[in-house]
């Protein structure tokens, strides 16, 4: 039902902005919500999300939870994927999660959690 990833992300502890990019790929239809600790900062947005989530020194010790729900609407493929990118910290992090569904119109959940330090 769901695919999950967890990642720690090292900040530079300065005023630099931390930018989050999420791409629901394979031309599939999906929505994403993002919560920074308990605050909902992205609410059910579709497609590509680019969001500055805060400054490095303000994010230390916080966690970011990204929840996405994707459905297979493509005739060309049964693949679904989601790419996460974090920029502005010590290094840029990027990772793509991918799942292939068996049924046309199947719904799949993706969860990603980042811990800032």
């Amino acid at each position, binding site marked *: 039902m769901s695919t999950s990833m967890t990642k*720690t992300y090292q900040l530079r502890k300065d005023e630099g902005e931390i930018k989050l990019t999420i791409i629901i790929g394979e031309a599939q239809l999906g929505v994403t919500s993002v919560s920074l600790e*308990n605050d909902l900062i992205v609410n059910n947005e579709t497609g590509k999300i680019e969001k500055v989530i805060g400054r490095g020194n303000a994010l230390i010790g916080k966690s970011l939870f990204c929840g996405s729900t994707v459905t297979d609407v493509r005739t*060309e493929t049964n693949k679904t994927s989601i790419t996460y990118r974090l920029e502005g910290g010590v290094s840029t992090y990027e990772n793509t999660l991918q799942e292939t569904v068996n049924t046309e119109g199947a719904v799949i959940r993706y969860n990603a959690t980042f811990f800032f330090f």
Partner: protein
Amino acid sequence: MNPLKLNIILFFALLFLISCRIYSQGEEKNEISFNMLLPPASPGFILMGKEPASVERPGSVSDFAVSILNQTKNFTIFPLNYSIEAAPYWLIGAPNLTFEEYSKEGSVGDNFLQTLSVSLASSTEESNNSENLSVTSAAAGIRFSLFRGAVDPKFNDYSARLDSILARIKFINTIFQDEIVKRKRNDPVLDSLKGMLLQPDISADKVTIIEEKLRLRNEEIEKEADAELKESFKSEAEAVRSVAGSLQLRRIGWKLDIAGAVLFDFIQQKFNKGEFSRYGLWLSGGYEWTSFSGLGVVRLLRDPKNSGLNSFDIGGRIIYDNLRKFAFSAEGILRKFSGPGADDSQWRAAVILDYYFGDNKKISFTFGKNFEAGTRFSTSGDLISAINLLFGFGTERPIL
């Protein structure tokens, strides 16, 4: 049992099983969904003179598709013509292509990448005499679109169906987001691990260990949330699947496809008697409205085996496809020859009935007159009576 009879029995058993599947689909979904954007038949069939439609309809691609073509001959033979077609872009994966980018009218470069397909086709002409001069032809083909139109939001309630899907997946996403965030809030294990991450001068090895512990605890929490919301998810996901399964994307507007193929003949089905036989390049395109399409083709074929004989095709096709599961079309093509020993011009005219019997599957029946019999570009008789089964596997589970 005679192998020929056995093959015929197997063929009809296959059709019977497909029919059973159609019936059961109808019972489950109360609606047989269909898709008119199947890829056209393999370009190799054009060179073999086996194509169901000579003026191909620019179509979508499936990451993998199979065609089985049967020149019926009163159903006395087992299908001898096959092709497989693959779309590299979709096979490799497109993690950066969003739904929104895909839906709009793309650039020529995007269209090329997203529609590029390569295919292999095989056809066998059985001999009717004692000399066993049967010929197996093998072709490699390529096809892509330069223009493919934009999504028609009104076709088959496309936009309304999308809105319905979006509403449901937003609901699913919200209940999971709320539940998981609630469970992670003030979780003592997570809080403790987060605190450990903040130790001054923490080593990379220690970060890795903590990250693994965070992952395990996260997955525990998410599994608990999955179990809590299992029933809600199941009912909503089923509703989404029902709508998404019948979602029919259709592009309207100007379309232009380029295709080409090369053909090798193997006399008496012996590999060492293989010879380069024909090659060709063609453009097909036109304008597609919601229910009507007007298409044309220009095609150059060269036959190096026959002293470099060239042929030039020009033709048109009209399609009416507002008949629920059917599409009806008629086409006419004029073929002119040039080069040494050029024959008079020839023509082909055919009517084609497509029946869409499930997601990404169709049967085409073609009847008409082919280019003249026994010519360099048409090795069989000039009567066209063919059934084409086309399966796109990219989005469909096995049908049997």
